[in-house]
């Protein structure tokens, strides 16, 4: 099979590693796991946004035949800590005294089957004393608003780098604050030709991953085993260990394919409750949510962003002040990270003499917000790229020329102490400008036509991240790669197996990606921040290279020559007119019963106090967007005529995978821009409580013409210059559409989503 061997990996015509499992429906996903005697758990959730729990009567539910137990906040005795969360541990495993959003968990029923559990759930009676809800961030900061928590929580301070301060729970209903002050901004502003302040509102959407959230847990004689849809099995193991006061090794977390996450399956969710229920029931328990409930588990952050930007008379950007308030919802989850990153990233791909950013997470009685594909970069890119366009128009410059004048060139640090920019922002900008097609549309009638562009930007994470991997080869020459990158749809198994095949020069069909199991998988900090290729990929690449080197050394010893003279291909060592088969070699060395040759790989990016985030960011992930649209001035409808988006893969390891990340993210972002939104009604109830009410993008929402492209600028830190692209698609769309609407109508929309109602209101306001 020499045609499947590649010197310089590019899997352009190869199927994904998980292809057969997925197109045949075989999986497995966690929901396919059935254990003998497995019970079904279902959760009773609060119908109120904010209330005190006065009493819970579970007696009628417990009397239902087939009900094993009903757990409430009274049953937390097995836990050492009863709350969890990132940085601030404020989310109760099950509510004890108060509910803080519609959907907060007040009881769990464990029964022989789902139907029995649902029937019993209806018989639980909870007495609530209603408390005033706090539905948005302005209300939450008002004097009249109630405190959502009676006390501060156990927490971990977030230590970052230079010129940065963070604080957990610094003020009333404030979960977290972040401040970064780089440069003497007052002096810079004083010398500026113009200073502009603009306010933007970012909406929030749900993750809407198609595999509803699930955890299957079982109590073994002396440990707990979990099957989970969580993308962070080792982080989860650590959280469970702390919550239950048991050693990490007490928990064995296993992960199958994960049916989409987009951030919603990161970090600890309701796994501690599943573990508690299996311990109480002393039987395997499956906690399977409906998709409605999955939507209640986590959301994106809505928020307000105020940017004050100064510019000189020639159109050079000088300084920016960023003020961001994000709606963190009821509990912490990963809000603190999103908050810090949104603030830092709001400087966009531009050079500044001074940049100050202040951001806060405000608590409200709404769905908890946390990681969402884009992780603050979406909010930041939307506001920043909107304002850049507005400023260009105000000072009479072409928005493209204005951007070009101010872009950070490749090789220059993003900010002092941070990593060098490893993308050519100008190249991608030129490409979207040239690829956006002229659309022949009627100029009469109500339609106004316009074009808009944006460069969304986010980094690929920091915090001194690491990757670890083991590659081993059986006596018969088949390869097993062990690492903790979860296959969540992004194609991690394809890219990683491909890298190993490439280094070891074996057909990719000979490489198997090992199942994820915290007992045997090398440690991993979580499949996050679009880093499977960059971090885990590098570790795997190193392991494979080391293994190749060791095999050649071994062969050199047997053949009595230098390893450098030998080549290895499909497990035949050749060179100097000699040839040796791997199987022969292993048998010769280790005997009749064979051996597994193996090697480990490890990478860690160091912490650095001089870096604003305490470590250099791994890489830079731009999203170039060009959009041509028409606005119906009579109905406010927006029609996308042409859409062009692009990403920088550094070096493409799997074109289908890269393209899919961009296009998939882009369509979600386009839906958020035009219609998709989580909203509450005037009675403070969720207005979109089910998938029937909640509108996501369908095939008909795809623009008539949409072309995506991949640049390979070759500067990424991953294997062969590769880098991640997983979150890029979310970043540039909203601003590009806002910019195009202004181009078409002269009206600027600053509050997502840009529904026909909002477009009409803005047109009417401008006409007055």
């Amino acid at each position, binding site marked *: 099979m020499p045609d499947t061997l590649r010197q310089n990996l590019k899997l352009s015509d190869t199927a994904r590693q998980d292809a057969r499992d997925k197109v045949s*429906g075989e*999986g497995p996903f966690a929901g396919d796991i059935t254990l003998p005697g497995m019970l079904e758990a279902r959760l009773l959730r609060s119908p109120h946004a904010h209330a005190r729990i006065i009493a819970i009567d579970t007696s009628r539910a417990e009397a239902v035949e087939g009900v094993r137990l009903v757990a409430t906040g009274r049953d937390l005795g097995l836990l050492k800590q009863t709350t969890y969360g990132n940085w601030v541990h404020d989310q109760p495993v099950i509510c004890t005294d108060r509910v803080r959003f519609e959907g907060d968990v007040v009881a769990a029923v464990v029964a022989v089957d789902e139907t029995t559990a649902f029937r019993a759930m209806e018989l639980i009676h909870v007495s609530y004393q209603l408390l005033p809800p706090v539905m948005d961030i302005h209300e939450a900061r008002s004097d009249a608003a109630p405190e959502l928590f009676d006390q501060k929580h156990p927490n971990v301070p977030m230590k970052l780098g230079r010129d940065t301060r963070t604080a957990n729970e610094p003020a009333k209903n404030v979960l977290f604050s972040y401040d970064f002050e780089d440069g003497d901004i007052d002096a810079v502003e004083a010398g500026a030709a113009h200073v502009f302040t603009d306010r933007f509102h970012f909406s929030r959407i749900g993750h809407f*991953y*198609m595999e*509803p959230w699930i955890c299957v847990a079982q109590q073994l004689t002396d440990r707990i085993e979990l099957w989970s849809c969580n993308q962070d099995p080792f982080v989860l193991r650590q959280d469970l260990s702390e919550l239950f006061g048991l050693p990490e090794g007490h928990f064995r977390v296993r992960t199958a394919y994960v*049916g989409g996450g987009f951030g919603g399956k990161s970090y600890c969710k309701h796994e501690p409750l599943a573990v508690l229920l299996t311990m109480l029931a002393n039987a395997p328990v499956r906690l399977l949510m409906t998709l409605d409930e999955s939507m209640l588990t986590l959301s994106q952050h809505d928020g307000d962003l105020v940017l004050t930007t100064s510019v000189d008379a020639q159109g050079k950007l000088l300084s920016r002040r960023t003020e961001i308030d994000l709606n963190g919802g009821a509990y912490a989850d990963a809000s603190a990270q999103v908050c810090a990153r949104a603030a830092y990233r709001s400087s966009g791909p531009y050079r500044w003499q001074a940049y100050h950013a202040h951001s806060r997470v405000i608590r409200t009685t709404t769905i908890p917000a946390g990681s969402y594909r884009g992780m603050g970069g979406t909010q930041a890119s939307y506001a920043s790229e909107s304002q850049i366009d507005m400023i260009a128009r105000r000072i009479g410059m072409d928005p493209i020329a204005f951007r070009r004048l101010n872009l950070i060139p490749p090789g220059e640090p993003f900010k002092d102490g941070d990593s060098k920019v490893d993308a050519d922002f100008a190249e991608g900008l030129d490409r979207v400008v040239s690829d956006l097609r002229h659309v022949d549309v009627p100029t009469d009638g109500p339609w106004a036509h316009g074009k808009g562009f944006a460069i969304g930007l986010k980094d690929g994470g920091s915090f001194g991240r690491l990757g670890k991997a083991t590659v081993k080869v059986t006596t018969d020459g088949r390869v097993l790669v062990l690492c903790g990158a979860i296959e969540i749809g992004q*194609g991690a198994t394809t890219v990683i197996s491909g890298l190993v095949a490439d280094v070891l020069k074996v057909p990719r069909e000979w490489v198997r990606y090992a199942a994820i199991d915290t007992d045997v998988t090398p440690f991993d900090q979580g499949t996050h921040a679009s880093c499977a290729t960059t971090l885990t990929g590098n570790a795997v690449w190193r392991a494979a290279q080391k293994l190749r080197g060791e095999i050649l050394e071994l062969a050199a010893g047997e053949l009595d020559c230098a390893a450098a003279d030998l080549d290895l291909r499909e497990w035949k060592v050749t060179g100097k007119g000699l040839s040796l088969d791997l199987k022969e070699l292993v048998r010769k060395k280790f005997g009749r019963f064979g051996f597994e040759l193996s090697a480990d790989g490890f990478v860690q990016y160091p912490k650095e106090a001089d870096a604003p985030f305490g470590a250099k960011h791994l890489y830079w992930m731009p999203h170039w967007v060009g959009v041509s649209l028409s606005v119906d001035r009579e109905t406010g409808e927006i029609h996308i005529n042409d859409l062009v988006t692009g990403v920088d893969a550094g070096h493409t390891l799997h074109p289908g995978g890269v393209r899919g990340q961009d296009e998939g993210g882009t369509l979600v972002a386009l839906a958020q821009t035009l219609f998709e939104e989580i909203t509450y009604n005037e009675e403070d109830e969720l207005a979109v409580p*089910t998938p029937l009410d909640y509108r996501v993008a369908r*095939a008909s929402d795809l623009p008539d013409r949409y072309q995506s492209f991949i640049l390979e600028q070759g500067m990424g830190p991953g294997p062969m210059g590769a880098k991640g692209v997983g979150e890029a698609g979310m970043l540039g769309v909203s601003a590009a559409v806002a910019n195009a609407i202004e181009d078409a109508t002269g009206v600027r929309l600053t509050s997502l989503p840009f529904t026909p109602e909002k477009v009409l209101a803005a047109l009417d306001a401008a006409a007055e």
Partner: protein
Amino acid sequence: MSDLIALKFRLNGVGRTAAVEPQVMLADLLREQLGEIDVRVSCDQGVCGVCTVLVDGIPTTSCLTPAFLVADREVTTVKGLSGNATGLTDVQQAFIACSAFQCGYCTPGMVVSATALLAEHPSPDRQTIRDWLDANVCRCTGYQTIIEAIEMVAAQRQAQAQTTTAEAAD
């Protein structure tokens, strides 16, 4: 509880019998009772299309179809499309060639819908494909690669048909 309803039907070409309560949905019968894990469930409200199977060739949301309704009918899940245990249909192969899936959770329903679409419209235009695919939500791909996969199959089948006709003419 309620009385069980006994039914016979064909599942992926094999005769099956089952006894179900009237409120049991087809998806639950297939997944929970008969172990057909290739039938996946997401919204459980008939709006996402993940659980789509064919009932007498018609794409059907199995999460909203009472199981007793398939008595004496032919039910085909994604696993049954190829007609043999190991093979893949041209639709499945096109999904692979076009990378028309990512997480794979919606894929069984998507493949079933695409198969039914091509049976009904051998050469669908883009609008027809979009209209049909509106019954299935995919949160990963942005749909474009799925549409391309369907177009690829239509083109392949057309080319094959032309070859067959040409051979017959010879």
